[in-house]
């Protein structure tokens, strides 16, 4: 069937027509290959304009549509809807951005008109090579599995669980918090570990294993809530850290009591050492200074006669209350010393603390109790889990977010989310915030009873041309490409592919291409654009 292309130029009020000579433009487009109608309109995105366009598509029996208007980033969805209403596959429409990237940036009216004509002709050349693409959807399982039953796991679960959505919480720890077990719609799997994951967003199969027994859980999404932990004395590796009067600041301050009880009478010296293990892990955990200060205040109440001192590097107290906490500590007369811990040594009843000052010189101090404020690292087993579920991890071993600003709770794998301190050291507040964010995003993306809309413009492999070199697999961020051992060619999993086209540029055989952005389509667009 011969193409019947309709070209509709939007004047966008005066936004376009001020700079582009519509009257001159229209004739420049007539006679372009396949074009049966060229027409301008005041405002195509208006309700009236949309109806007009839909009607035109029907009336003229258009096979392809070119809308010369604003940026596709603004109105592509609008006009795709219009196509549907007009009975045309939305992927047979191409927009020419003659507003933002022509009318508004080109001072000379004649030049602007010329350019608009070229841009539209390019759009025509491309659209006639477009193929109709189906709107693809898959049934999705609304259930969610949460790995880790700590704070973030509990918050996320409590937000998501309900009559329409079952939430599984897995933890290597056999007993989980009552806060979880008592929740309606939550199924806890204590003492279990994730063995394997198959499938993709909307339909994951997760294999759980506990001592002896295995079970498979089917869910639509996963949340990694494996949290973080304090570095151990061994990991810090300070000489002499095994000294009996050296302790790592515990989560629960009550854990300090036995040490306090053992303090000599009089005015025992208690020294808090910050940034313990920081050099080893290679980053500032950012949450420890405040924890330390809180502990110091608790100390003032529980052991009033103790002389507090603090060996610190940079003080990191971000947020509303940080500064107040800091001033508070200065207020109670704790002695603050700048220094990097180098070694510890039990000498008689006291511990000698050696440290390096900013100027490089070595300093020493002694205390009856040394409390190391530890750096934060990913929890035990996080690494293994990351490898099993195949998400990206940063150098420190924390789960990497898909995008630090835009997608802070998504991972490199669609449908696997991360919350709390699994993606980096967090305080309780940040942990809850991220957990709520993850829950909200899942609630929005995985709605019970709703199907998942899939990217239509995905990559596809031409078996005849594929050599099976798997360049495409190597560069694909999403693991959307599989290797078919029988055919010995690559195959795209279209439920995962996001159509970025990286694989296309990686394939020397041009065996893989993105629907709607094939080599020919782009090439012909270029040829017209630069004529």
């Amino acid at each position, binding site marked *: 069937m011969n193409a019947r292309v309709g070209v509709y130029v939007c004047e966008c009020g005066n936004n376009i027509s001020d700079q582009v000579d519509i009257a001159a433009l229209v004739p420049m487009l007539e006679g372009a290959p396949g074009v049966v109608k060229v027409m301008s309109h005041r405002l195509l995105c208006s309700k009236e304009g949309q109806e007009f366009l839909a009607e035109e598509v029907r009336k003229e029996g258009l096979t392809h549509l070119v809308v010369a208007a604003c940026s596709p980033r603004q109105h592509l969805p609008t006009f795709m809807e219009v196509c549907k209403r007009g009975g045309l596959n939305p992927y047979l429409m191409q927009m020419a*951005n003659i507003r*933002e990237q022509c009318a*508004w940036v080109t001072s000379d009216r004649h030049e602007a008109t010329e*350019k608009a004509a070229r841009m539209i002709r390019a759009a025509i050349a491309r659209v006639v090579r477009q193929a109709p693409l189906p709107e693809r959807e898959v049934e999705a399982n609304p259930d969610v599995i949460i790995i880790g039953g700590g704070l973030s796991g509990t918050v996320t679960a409590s937000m998501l669980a309900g009559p329409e959505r079952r939430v599984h919480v897995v933890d290597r720890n056999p007993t989980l918090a009552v806060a979880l077990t008592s929740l309606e719609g939550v199924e806890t799997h204590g003492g279990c570990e994730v063995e394997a994951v198959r499938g993709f967003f909307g339909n994951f199969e997760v294999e759980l294993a506990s001592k002896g027994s295995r079970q498979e859980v089917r869910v639509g999404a996963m949340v990694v809530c494996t949290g973080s932990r304090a570095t151990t004395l061994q990991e810090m590796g300070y000489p002499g850290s095994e000294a009996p009067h050296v302790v790592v600041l515990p989560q629960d301050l009550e854990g300090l009591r036995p040490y306090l009880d053992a303090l000599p009478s009089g005015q025992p010296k208690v020294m808090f050492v910050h940034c313990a293990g920081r050099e080893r892990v290679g980053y500032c955990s950012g949450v420890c200074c405040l924890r330390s200060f809180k502990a110091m205040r608790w100390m003032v109440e529980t052991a009033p006669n103790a002389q507090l001192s603090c060996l610190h590097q940079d003080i990191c107290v971000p947020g509303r209350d940080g500064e107040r906490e800091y001033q508070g500590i200065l207020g109670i007369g704790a002695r603050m010393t700048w220094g990097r811990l180098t070694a510890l040594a039990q000498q008689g009843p006291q511990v000698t603390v050696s440290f390096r000052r900013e100027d490089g010189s070595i300093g020493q101090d002694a205390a009856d109790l040394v409390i190391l404020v530890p750096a934060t690292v990913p929890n035990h087993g996080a690494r293994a889990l990351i490898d099993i579920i195949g998400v990206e991890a940063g150098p420190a071993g924390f789960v990497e977010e898909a995008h630090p600003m835009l997608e802070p709770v998504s991972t*490199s794998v669609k449908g696997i989310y991360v919350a709390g301190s699994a993606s980096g050291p967090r305080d309780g507040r940040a942990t809850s915030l991220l957990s709520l964010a993850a829950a909200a995003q899942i609630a929005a993306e995985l709605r019970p009873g709703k199907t998942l809309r899939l990217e239509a413009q995905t990559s596809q492999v031409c078996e005849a041309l594929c050599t099976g070199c798997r360049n495409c697999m190597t560069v694909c*961020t999403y693991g959307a490409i599989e290797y078919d051992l029988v055919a010995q060619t690559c195959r795209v999993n279209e439920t995962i592919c996001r*159509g970025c*086209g990286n694989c296309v540029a990686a394939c020397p055989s041009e065996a893989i291409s993105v629907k709607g952005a094939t080599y020919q389509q782009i090439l012909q667009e*270029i040829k017209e654009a*630069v004529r």
Partner: protein
Amino acid sequence: MSGNEEPRVLGFLCNWCAYAGADLAGVSRLQLPANFRVIRTMCSARTEPLFLFKALLGGMDGVLVAGCHPGDCHYQRGNYFTRRRLVMVQEILKALNMEHERVRLHWVSASECSLYQKVLTEFIEDLKGMERNAARDEVFL
């Protein structure tokens, strides 16, 4: 370039950063050279080297590839590959003394419309300083 001829430049802009930046340039009414044509790709990594060679041998005076800053790729890592591919293309052109300056890569975020304008105008200024791309008239390509 000979006379007052305007250099012809082709740009591959990624949908999420550079193209958005170009849109913002429009919204901010920044004035840009008219002889610049844009191809919108979802990711700068879609820009295969072959397009660049074809454009150069097809007589374009300049080709610009622009995408998200490293680390900000909408597709997480695409632009790192773009960077490597561009490095390769330039090395090839250099080795053949083929005016590698005609091919450029720039990181432009969705908010950097003035950077976009700067990049573009500078590029075209530099191209004006060069001869018109000989490939445009070459019969024996």
